[in-house]
């Protein structure tokens, strides 16, 4: 049994302008100890997918459909108290902006202890002991002293370590990290990623790494989901995806990765804007920006189908296999020649 299994998840927000289809039919599964990279632009539905499965979307505004199984237990429609048990204990979450994600008027220690005391019937002293312990694990120097500091006395990278500590303090099965390094500078990003890798090994947990950075995915993930316009457009293990991506949006993402050894070469960019989820395009969500668009793309949503590489590599595209192979080989050759130049 998979640790986390999501089937045909839909999240729709009611707004003053109409219905917003934030997530449309997302399915994936996550096994214990694995790392799933979820890639997509802002507004692709990647964050909402995981807020939904944690029960953190406002039920007064959002309609949710589908199934989320955590160790076989259905989470959609579970009682609020059951969801509260799961949050922070079985699933920990780290958010994008560490500058605003900690309560500014409470001490770091208080906020960590709170996470323990909500889920465990222990004394505050024991909660404090665990908090100091976990701060040491995330490599906060002088943890015994810094625990009594307020968030504003910490740097961004340090605060993100505190956030990770808070998510891990109850030894969750899954850590959901929503762009945990996006707001940090590059050297700090690398430290945080290494820290997460080490903690994953020590705590034996699964990680969902939500990001728009394929570099992060290449470094950490075992499996990858590419999301676009609220849908999964490609899904594979990480080597399969980087070896032969099967659809134009993924090609675009790979082409827009900066490469250090190429001097003066222009980064490829994906033209246009992410689709409006209020008035999504008919057919394939990527068709307005796709350079290989055909008539059928504007009429029919391509099904999620298995690639020639195997049943584990799924993608959505109307282009036929020969065309896809040829285009990818050309793109690859172009990148290689740039690298050589």
């Amino acid at each position, binding site marked *: 049994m998979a640790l986390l299994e999501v089937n045909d998840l839909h999240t729709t927000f009611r707004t003053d302008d109409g219905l917003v289809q934030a997530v449309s039919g997302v399915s994936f599964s996550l096994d214990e100890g694995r790392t799933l990279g979820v890639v997509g632009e802002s507004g692709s539905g990647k964050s909402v997918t995981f807020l939904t499965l944690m029960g953190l979307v406002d039920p007064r505004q959002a309609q949710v459909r589908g199934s989320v199984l955590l160790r076989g237990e259905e989470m959609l429609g579970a009682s609020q108290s059951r969801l509260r048990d799961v*949050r922070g204990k079985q699933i920990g*979450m780290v958010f994008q902006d560490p500058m605003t994600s*900690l*309560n500014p008027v409470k001490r770091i220690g208080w906020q960590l202890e*709170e996470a323990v005391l909500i889920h465990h019937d222990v004394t505050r002293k024991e909660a404090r002991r665990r908090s100091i312990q976990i701060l040491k694990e995330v490599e906060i120097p002088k943890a015994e002293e810094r625990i009594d500091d*307020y968030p504003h006395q910490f740097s961004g990278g340090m605060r993100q370590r505190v956030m990770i500590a808070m998510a891990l303090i109850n030894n969750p099965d899954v850590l959901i990290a929503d762009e945990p390094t996006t707001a940090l500078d590059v050297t700090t990003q690398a430290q945080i990623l290494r820290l997460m890798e080490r903690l994953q090994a020590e705590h034996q947990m699964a990680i969902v790494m939500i990001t728009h950075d394929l570099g992060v995915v290449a470094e950490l993930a075992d499996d990858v989901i590419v999301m676009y316009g609220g849908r999964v457009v490609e899904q594979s293990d990480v080597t399969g995806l980087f070896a032969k991506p099967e659809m134009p949006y993924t090609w675009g993402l790979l082409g827009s990765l900066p490469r250090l050894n190429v001097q003066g070469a222009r980064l490829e960019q994906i033209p246009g804007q992410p689709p409006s989820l209020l008035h999504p395009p008919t057919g394939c969500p990527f068709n307005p920006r796709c350079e290989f668009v055909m008539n059928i793309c504007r009429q029919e949503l391509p099904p999620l189908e298995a690639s020639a590489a195997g049943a584990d590599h799924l993608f959505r595209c109307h282009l036929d296999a020969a065309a896809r192979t040829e285009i990818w080989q050309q793109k690859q050759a172009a990148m290689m020649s740039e690298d050589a130049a």
Partner: protein
Amino acid sequence: MTQFLIRRLFWAVFLFFVATIITYLIFWVIPTNPAQLAAGHAASPEFLASIKHRLHLDKPIWFQYYYFVENLVVHGSLGQSFINRESVDRIIGKDAPVTASLVFGGAVLWLSLSIPIGILSALRPRSILDRITMTGVLIGISAHPVWIGLILSFLLGYKLHLTPIAGYCNFFPGAPGAQCEGPVQWAYHLILPWVTFMILFAALYVRLVRASVMETMSEDYVRTARAKGASQRRVMVQHVLRNSLLPVVTILGMDLGLALGGAIFTETIFNLPGLGHEVIQAYGANDLPVITGVVVFSTVCVIVFNLIVDVTYGFLDPRIRPS
């Protein structure tokens, strides 16, 4: 901290001069003859001249202002009333407790009403409760205190005989010539003024609290608390409330400081002998020392309450705590 206080003190002195100079300038611009009022209509020209001399009204306005400042700095006195020679210090000492009773009692009422209602409205935006509240807020903001006061006084006092129509009783018994005294009578006579104040300010504060709570609930750290598994109650009490009351403290400090200088409308309607009542009478009589005295007192109140706000803020928000 010391540096902060010194800066504050300089501000206070500056504000004092700005407020008093403006008061003197206005007095100089409007055509007045306070000596005539003090001397009476039938006074002889010689007597009028001697009164003018005694009140320093025969000197230019800048000298009058200098005399006022000198008197305050050297003798610590705000001077004497033009009309009846009563010490302005004593007048303010007599009136300020009345205004303070009105303002602080009203503040307790309006806060204990608007904080819970504001929070409930924020928790259920667009619900029936929220809509009713927002309608009430609109009425409260639109209504003038004179109108509210008169309606209350007419209905509850005159028609139903539930409360006194107007008047004030001292909290502490023993004042000579008082018709009524003691805490019970004091509170009984202040019910309607308090309610008037409450209706006026509760409307503003419900809106303020509601907006602030709603804004705080969408903060990232509130989402973090939910992701930790905190219950709705815990999220509200531990994470939302303290943060959302910060702006309320600021506005409350400013309102209290301002209102202590005299709640002119409410005091007039209910015939409360407070600072607002006093200053209106002093305007009518061109009694410059009394007007200036109230202005000085009011300025001091605003400054002191802003200081209290800053200190409270330091307790509530560690980010601006002076280390």
